[in-house]
């Protein structure tokens, strides 16, 4: 670590490339915290968006026309507006309307910027996940669903045990794409001051005037994260492969 830091210190002294995070203890600390915040943000958004998609795709097939219309409206709203506008709207408009508590002299909202980022990005990606899952559900043969209902399954039981597990496998490639997009879109949380990587990099380059260096770090950081996600997803896809099917 010593050697590593010395190298970048020397690089700065000789060439002017200032990768300050690799030799300055304070900036390194900021960087590491940003990594954790980013990873937590990504995991929370992924999980929330998958839950939204799972429930949304189920509700899309509901008997009630009202429920189906609500889902259709939700998808239209989140698909047809920019995610950055959504984040700002959630944080500044809905954030003002939600309850807060007295945190010693000032009002602190129960849902902070991190929470609003997860909610808005989760709903944003969840709208796409809903449509992706629907495409998978439509690929499940009607006869398979019929077999489940002939065995006494309710619509929900058949969705959980038969339809969704099959649909999920069909739509994994499309889901991969959307989750990769979601991962990258978490940088928009920068707009409401969530201390994730984009926000922190901005702070670091403001303090150290090393914009190009931090941009390079950003690129490598996100390339690495996406690679990990894609690797994980393809491992998952392989582990779910059904012998003799498809």
């Amino acid at each position, binding site marked *: 670590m010593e050697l590593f830091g010395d190298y970048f210190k020397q690089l700065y002294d000789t060439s002017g490339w200032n990768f300050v995070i690799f030799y300055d203890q304070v900036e390194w600390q900021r960087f590491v915290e940003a990594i954790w915040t980013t990873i937590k943000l990504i995991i929370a958004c992924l999980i929330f968006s998958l839950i939204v998609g799972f429930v949304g795709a189920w509700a899309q097939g509901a008997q009630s026309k009202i429920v189906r219309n609500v889902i259709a409206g939700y998808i239209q709203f989140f698909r047809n507006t920019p995610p950055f506008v959504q984040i700002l709207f959630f944080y500044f408009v809905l954030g003002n309307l939600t309850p807060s508590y007295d945190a010693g002299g000032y009002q602190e909202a129960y849902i902070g910027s991190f929470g609003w980022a997860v909610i808005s990005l989760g709903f944003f990606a969840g709208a796409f996940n809903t449509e992706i899952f629907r495409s998978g559900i439509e690929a499940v*043969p009607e*006869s*398979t669903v*019929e*077999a*489940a*209902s*002939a*065995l*006494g*399954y*309710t619509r929900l*039981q058949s969705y959980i*045990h*038969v339809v969704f*597990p*099959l649909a999920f*496998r069909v739509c994994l490639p499309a889901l991969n794409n959307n989750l990769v997009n979601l991962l990258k879109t978490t940088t928009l949380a920068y707009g409401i001051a969530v201390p994730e990587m984009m926000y922190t990099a901005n702070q670091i380059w403001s303090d150290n005037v090393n914009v190009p260096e931090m941009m390079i770090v950003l690129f490598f950081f996100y390339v690495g994260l996406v690679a990990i996600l894609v690797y994980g997803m393809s491992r998952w896809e392989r582990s779910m492969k*059904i*012998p*003799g*099917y*498809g």
Partner: protein
Amino acid sequence: MASPSQSGNGSGTNWTPDQPMVSIKDVHKSFGDLEVLKGVSLDVMKGECICIIGPSGSGKSTLIRCVNALNDIQQGSILVEGLEVNDPNLDKLELRKKVGMVFQQYNLFPHKTAIENIMMAPITVLKQDKDEVAEHANSLIKKVRLEGKENSYPGELSGGQQQRVAIARSLAMSPDVMLFDEVTAALDPETVKEVLNTIQELAEEGMTCILVTHEMGFAREVANHIYFTDFGLIVEHGAPATFFDDAKDPRTKEFLSQIL
């Protein structure tokens, strides 16, 4: 809770075994403008095995799909052990506990192994104890002669093996009536026999069976009664011997002359 080997009764209806187990009366069914069933009536007593035969499009599959409410009917009545199927407030679970169904295309759950396919419904739907279900499932695997294939996925099994898993899956729910909808129509000629043998054993054990089939030899050997449908009506019916050797209706005669 009933053990898996007992059949599901206690429906609260006042059905007794001397009444028909399945009683179909004047059933009408249309898909849009197309009237598929034009007033069909038939009764099946407990332990009987009946075969419905007839040309394609004559409504035979539609008829048995109506018996377990996969299709609804517009007019008439279907009683299964006294339970009215043509009732908007029908408890479908109650009906489907009584009626098992096997399909032409097997329709197994491809993401589950053979034994899991058999065990799923009793655990999920009937909330039975997992160990008891496993025991029952293993005995069913033996019954349909698929020992050693428990952990194979449907995609790894032949058509005949898949169909026997489908039969076992249906039996796992301990139904009182079994419906077979052209269950051998998608099979190779060599594997038809293994599936028919399984059904024959079931019928001989006293399971009430309603079959839609094109296997005339099988119908003759196993059925107690044959129904011939054409254009949404039962044209002729009778015991196998009379039906096959002494058909009265010209349409039946023509059909039999083409098929036998």
